[in-house]
C-alpha cells in the first residue's frame, strides 16, 4: 500500500534529490571500501603481528597509516589497499557535509531564505570545525 504524505511537489522533489545524493554516495564509497578491504584480506595472513598490535593500541607501521591527503594520494598510486579504503571512508565522511550544502541549494530553489541561512550557517560551522581540528 502506497501512502501519500501531504507534501508539496517541491518538498517531494527535494526529498528525492537528497536521497539520490545519499544513495549514490553510499554505493560509491561502499564499493571502494569493499574493493580495498578484499585486497587487504588477501594480504592480511602475511602479517601475523597485526592482531596483537591492534589490541595494544600502538600505531601500525606508522608509514602505512593513511592519515593525510598527501599520504593517501601517494598510497593510491602504489595501489595500497589501505589507501583505497581511506579514500572510500573519506567519501563516506564527506557525505553529511555535502548533504548540508545540497539542502542549502534546495531550500534556495524553494525560496525559503530562513532555511538557506540556517543551512549555510551549519556548513560554515562544519568547515571551521574541520579547520580548527586540523590546527589542534
Amino acid at each position, binding site marked *: *500500500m502506497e*501512502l501519500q*504524505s*501531504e*507534501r508539496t511537489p517541491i*518538498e*517531494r522533489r*527535494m*526529498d*528525492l534529490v537528497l*536521497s539520490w545524493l*545519499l*544513495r549514490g554516495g*553510499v554505493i560509491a564509497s561502499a564499493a571502494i*571500501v569493499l574493493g*580495498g*578491504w578484499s585486497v*587487504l*584480506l588477501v594480504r*592480511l*595472513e602475511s*602479517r*601475523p603481528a*597485526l592482531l596483537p598490535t*591492534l*589490541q595494544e*593500541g600502538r*600505531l*601500525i607501521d606508522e608509514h602505512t597509516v*593513511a*592519515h*593525510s591527503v598527501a599520504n593517501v594520494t601517494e598510497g593510491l598510486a602504489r595501489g595500497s*589497499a*589501505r589507501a583505497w*579504503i*581511506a579514500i*572510500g*571512508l*573519506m567519501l*563516506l*565522511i564527506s*557525505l*553529511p*557535509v555535502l*548533504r*548540508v550544502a545540497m*539542502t542549502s541549494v534546495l531550500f534556495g530553489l524553494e525560496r525559503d531564505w530562513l*532555511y538557506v541561512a*540556517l*543551512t549555510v550557517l*551549519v556548513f560554515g*560551522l*562544519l568547515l*571551521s*570545525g*574541520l579547520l*580548527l*581540528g*586540523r590546527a*589542534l
Partner: protein
Amino acid sequence: MFTSILWFEVALLGTSFIVGIFGAVLGIGGGVMLVPALTLLFGVNLRYAVGASIVSVIATSSGAAARYVHDHLTNLRLASFLEVATVTGALTGAFLSAVLDARWLFLLFALMLLQSSVLMMRLKDASLQAPSGTDKWADRLRLASTYPDRVLGRVIVYRPVRVWLGFALMWIAGVLSALLGIGSGPLKVLAMDSAMRLPIRVSSASSNYMIGVTAAASAGTYFVKGDILPELAAPVALGVLGGALVGTHLMVRLPSQRIRQVFIVVLLILAVQMGLRAFGIQVR
C-alpha cells in the same frame, strides 16, 4: 579470543551488521554498542574503537537517511534547524574538553538518562495522539509536517511543542557528545521524543539524518590523528551499511511503542556505561 586476523575481520563485519540494524531503527550511531563490543569482545584498544565508532555513526546516518528521506520520514526543516544547535554544541564541547574534568559529568549524564527513560516509559508515542501543540515557534519555523505511517496505515499529522527546549537539549547533546565521546544519537532522539513530542519514527529518522553531521565535524580530527584504522573501519563501515539497509526496512514496519521500548533498553545500557565511567571504570 581471535587467533586469526581473518576471523577477526569477518566477526567484526557481522557485529557491525547488527549494530547497523539497531542504529537505523533507533536513530543512533551505535557507539553505545560498538565501543564495548570492540573493546570487550575484540580486545581492540579504546582509541581505535572510538575511531571505528565515528565511522559507524556516519555509515548509519548516510545509509539510513537515504531511505528515510526518500520515504518522507525525515523532517528536513526540523533537522536543519536543530543541526545549528548540535554543531555549535559540538564545537563548544571540543573547546571545553581542553579545560574541564569530565568525570562528574558522566555521573550527571547517567542520572539524567535514568530519569529520561522513566519519563519515556510513561509517555505514549506521539503518533498515537492527536497533535496538541500550540508552540508559536513551530509555526514560525514551519516545523509541523506529515509522514506516512505504514503500521497505522494512514498519514500522521504532527506538530512539535517546546521548540526552544528541544533546541537547548540538542545543544547539550552536541556538547556532551564532544565531551564524552558518546551518546549523541540517543540524546537527540530523547529530545525530539520527550521534549518536542514528535512521533518516534520522525525522531529516529531525523536523528539518523543529523548524527552524521555532528560526527563529520569531528571525524576529520580523528583521521588526521590516525585513529581511524582501515583494518577496523572497513569491516565496520561495510557491516553497518548492510545492517542499516535491513534496519530501515524493519523500522517502518515495527509498532512505534515497540521501537520506543527497545530504545529505552539502550538508554539504560548507556546509563550504566556512563555511571561506571564516573567511577573510573572504562568498559574495555
